[in-house]
């Protein structure tokens, strides 16, 4: 179904609507579906940098499913999520990381 199909069906009942507003409503629907269903899984690669703890997440990322690290065979191996990072971590300081922990 195209955006035009959606608009035509909606306007048949509701009357003519501004095009930009219809785009806004359709995009709002897509955002709500993405947030509630979490159906759309994507993957993103990034460089692993020494002494860097934090890596930015993009706005399109609703929820993280898993994180994998590339091993010496070139394969991606899943790594666990820390349940309680505040008790397990060494504190960030200038000698151990380039980024500060907020």
């Amino acid at each position, binding site marked *: *179904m*195209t*955006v*035009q199909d*959606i608009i035509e069906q*909606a306007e048949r*009942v509701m009357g003519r*609507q501004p*095009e930009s507003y219809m*785009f806004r*409503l*359709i995009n*709002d629907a*897509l955002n709500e*579906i*993405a947030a509630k*269903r*979490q*159906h*759309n*899984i994507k*993957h*993103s*690669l*990034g*460089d*692993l940098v*020494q*002494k*860097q*703890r*934090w*890596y*930015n*997440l993009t*706005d*399109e*990322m*609703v*929820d*993280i*499913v898993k*994180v*994998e*690290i*590339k*091993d*010496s*065979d070139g394969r*991606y191996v899943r*790594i*666990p*999520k*820390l349940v309680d990072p505040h008790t397990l*971590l*060494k504190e*960030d300081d200038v000698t*151990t990381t*380039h980024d500060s*922990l907020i």
Partner: protein
Amino acid sequence: MATNKRNYPNDYFAWYNDDSRLAIVEKVISTEGENTHYDAYDSFQSSVDDSYTRTVTAVSRSEQIGSYTTSTAHGLVVGEEVSISGTTNFNTSDLASNIVLNVIDTTTFQMTLDGSSASNESGLTATVTSKDRIANGYRISYHSKYTDVTSQANDLYTDAGLDSGMHQYVLCYVKARLLEDMGDLEKAQYFRQMFEMGMNKYPMRKSGVRGLTVPKLP
């Protein structure tokens, strides 16, 4: 057969996150005599695999500063350790420091040379290798937003990424919002419920794995 399954970078990594950032840490393991200590997690500090490389096409010198130009964005930062090869007089052995001195722009960075007489070089296919990072060293799998539509010709499946079985529910949502604008809350609620029920009913599994059913206990 896979080898080196627990050598770097296969040591014990873990992750956590806040709303806008992902943290990747590795377990710090230290040895004291015959005892091995598994300490807390800390930022990744193990050795790298020399996988992060860029092509250097030219080098210009000003006093003891060498400006390296790359063919594509180098991604390097000030303070990053690199090695350089493939030039005539501006390789790693010609540097006073292996640390990136300045980043001029996305394709130019500067290093401190150990001499001040080498001539500029161009037409190179030299290599700069980061000693501080692993190219594509991590992969995040995430639930993503759908791509915004911007044209009436956009298809909700091919352009936005929404399964075709859910397209009708987008129409329900649009109708609900338009009816809210018109003040007809009863009809708006009807289409809103159609939207919610449709989303809840739509099957999630595409892997072929059968779901578990819990039998009713007597």
